[in-house]
């Protein structure tokens, strides 16, 4: 059989098209789906199975063809840059959105999506996604951090679980030996991970509800000074091979207490059984209160999407209506708290032990980074915190400079419409 040149070219084109389709077929959707095509972006989760799960959710949606993009690397920077162009996602996970993104008109108002169920979202994570009374992101799952302590080591040293910052400083000192350090707050002594948590523990805030600097108070300098005491007192583990987000240092017996995330709980439980307990960051001073930082990635819709209504409908379906997927996403792969209060209350894995404590801490003591806390304010505060903790800089003078910077930032963002 002979084949003409034209037929050969046509066949080649057909095979090529087939191959291209095959290459691009990992879209995260099965059959179904109408003609509208939506692109959905996620940051890369470390837990096995999460990517397959979100692809399964997308495939189960039949009102649009949803393509999932799983993006490793600097996700926040990637999405921020993509929002400047028309080639970005329709729906995307966002560690925010930030106030500049909202004021810059880069994300779509999602208030109507939570109508009727708004009160069921944990207010600690919904509030930072709310600006001017409108909701700009739908919280997906809650991540929180807390203090893990080894019961047996504390008992051997005659130390009670610390409930004040002074007691924590004292406990860390008593628990430190030539082989084990008292406390691990990260290899930088806590400058990176603690952020505003110590201020909340002193009864202060980063930004007040009426939009003013929330730590222009002598209590702030007093509390941050105690973090330097911990560092200078040789009771902190520093230079561990794995940093604070990994429980290895705690599990290997390098430290008696460690500040890390809820995500580490299943691993710690598996290795230590019931020889551990959890605490919030202890209060400091008479006005103080225990605190735990909480945060949530949320689902947002790009204002440059050509299918905003379809994108909103998909977000409503996945992150408001499909509570079964929300619980699955939070607890079947990693270990997170569902953003919906009703789901967190009924989830079996969160009903007992340290997990139940974590849920209670989140509800009672959860503090999230406020929307008015801009990236420039964050850099100024973090740098000051680093200098206070590690270099012994004067907390008073460092905080004075930060207060000026943050006040200027607040003025800037309040001027915008």
């Amino acid at each position, binding site marked *: 059989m002979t084949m003409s040149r034209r037929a050969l070219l046509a066949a080649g084109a057909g095979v090529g098209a087939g191959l291209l389709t095959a290459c691009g077929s990992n879209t995260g959707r099965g059959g179904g789906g109408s003609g509208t095509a939506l692109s959905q972006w996620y940051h890369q989760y470390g837990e096995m199975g999460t990517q397959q799960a979100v692809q399964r959710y997308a495939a189960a949606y039949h009102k649009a063809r949803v393509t999932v993009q799983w993006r490793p690397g600097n996700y926040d*920077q990637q999405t*921020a840059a993509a929002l400047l162009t028309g080639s970005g996602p329709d729906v995307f996970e966002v560690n925010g959105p930030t106030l*500049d993104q909202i004021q810059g008109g880069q994300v779509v108002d999602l208030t109507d999506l939570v109508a009727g169920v708004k009160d069921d979202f944990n207010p600690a994570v919904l509030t930072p996604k709310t600006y001017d009374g409108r909701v700009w992101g739908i919280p997906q799952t809650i991540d929180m951090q807390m203090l893990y302590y080894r019961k047996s080591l504390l008992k051997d040293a005659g130390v009670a679980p610390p409930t004040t910052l002074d007691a924590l400083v004292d406990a860390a000192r008593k628990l430190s030996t030539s082989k084990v350090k008292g406390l691990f707050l990260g290899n930088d002594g806590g400058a*990176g991970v603690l952020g505003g948590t110590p201020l909340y523990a002193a009864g202060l805030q980063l930004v007040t509800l009426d939009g003013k600097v929330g730590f222009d108070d002598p209590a702030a300098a007093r509390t941050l000074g105690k973090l330097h005491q911990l560092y200078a007192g040789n009771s902190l583990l520093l230079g561990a091979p794995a940093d604070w987000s990994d429980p290895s240092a705690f599990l290997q017996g390098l430290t008696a207490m460690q500040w890390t995330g809820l995500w580490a709980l299943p691993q710690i439980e598996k290795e230590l059984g019931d020889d551990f307990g959890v605490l919030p960051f202890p209060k400091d001073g008479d006005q103080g209160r225990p605190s735990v930082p909480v945060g949530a990635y949320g689902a947002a819709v790009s204002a440059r999407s050509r299918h905003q209504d379809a994108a909103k409908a998909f977000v409503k379906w996945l992150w408001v209506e499909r509570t079964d997927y929300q619980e699955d996403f939070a607890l079947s792969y990693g270990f997170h708290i569902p953003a919906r209060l009703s789901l967190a209350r009924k989830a079996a894995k969160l009903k007992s032990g340290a997990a139940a404590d974590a849920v209670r801490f989140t509800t009672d003591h959860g503090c999230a980074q406020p929307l008015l806390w801009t*990236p420039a304010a964050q850099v100024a505060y*973090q*740098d000051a915190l680093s200098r206070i903790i*590690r*270099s012994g800089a004067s907390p008073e003078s460092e905080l004075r400079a930060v207060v000026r910077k943050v006040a200027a930032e607040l003025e800037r963002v309040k001027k915008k419409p």
Partner: protein
Amino acid sequence: MRRRRALWFWVFVGPFAAGLALFTYVPLLWSVGLSFFDAHNTVTPTHFAGLGNYRAMLEDDAFTGSLRTFAVFTAFIVPVTYLLSLSLALMVNRVRRARAFFRSVFFLPAACSYVVAALVWKMSIFNGVRFGLANTVLGWFGGDPVAWLSTTDPPWYWLVIVTVRLWLQAGFYMVLFLAGLQRIDPVLYEAAAVDGARPGWTVLRHITLPQLRATSVAVVLLLVINAFQAFDEFYNLLSDARGYPPYARPPLVYLYYTALGQGQNLGLGSAGAVILALIIAVVTVGQARWLRLGRTDADG
């Protein structure tokens, strides 16, 4: 004929010139333009800010602090690497046996990636726990473990950064110096010996170093450019998920976060980029003049 030549010239050069203009010069000029505007979350701003962004950037402690850090880093690493690589070259050049072996031994680290080397330094040699290699050695002499990368007073992290960079690049510059040494005419040394110059410092100062001037100029220029571009070891040794500590944040990274991070302040980031470009240009021109780059000995 000439017309045809011009046509072919543009056929070959045109696409590259267009690409260069589109992806380099237009964004560059656009960025300079943006630096005079309030450009939050947009690349097409309307609100003219004059020199406001430049003023804000120069008053920003985070930016000026990172410039200072890198100026100190450059001022230290350039002469140290220069001296070490020249010393290695002089030693290897004098070795009578197994010269190729020693040359390879010193050059091999240049083939290792900065990322891998930085992680080895961080995780196994200079980690802060008692079983790290450096701390184990300290322990033999009764010393307490040192948190090498977490201590700012004294700033032990510089020891880690500097040693990894020296290990990685001294061998490469050694090879350049070796090539320079082998081009020196032996007659010069023989003549010096006849005139009574003893081998050692006198010969090095009056014959070897002047003969290596061209190589030295190239090495210093490369070292300065590399020092300003230092990123890999800072990223892998000192950054974490939250960013960099204030004392080790590369200026380019800070500008990246300002412009393309969640800050999305493209006007401010552009102003910083212009300031940084001007500083590098001034340093390069100043250095070229100081080293008399491009002049021959005949020019005086």
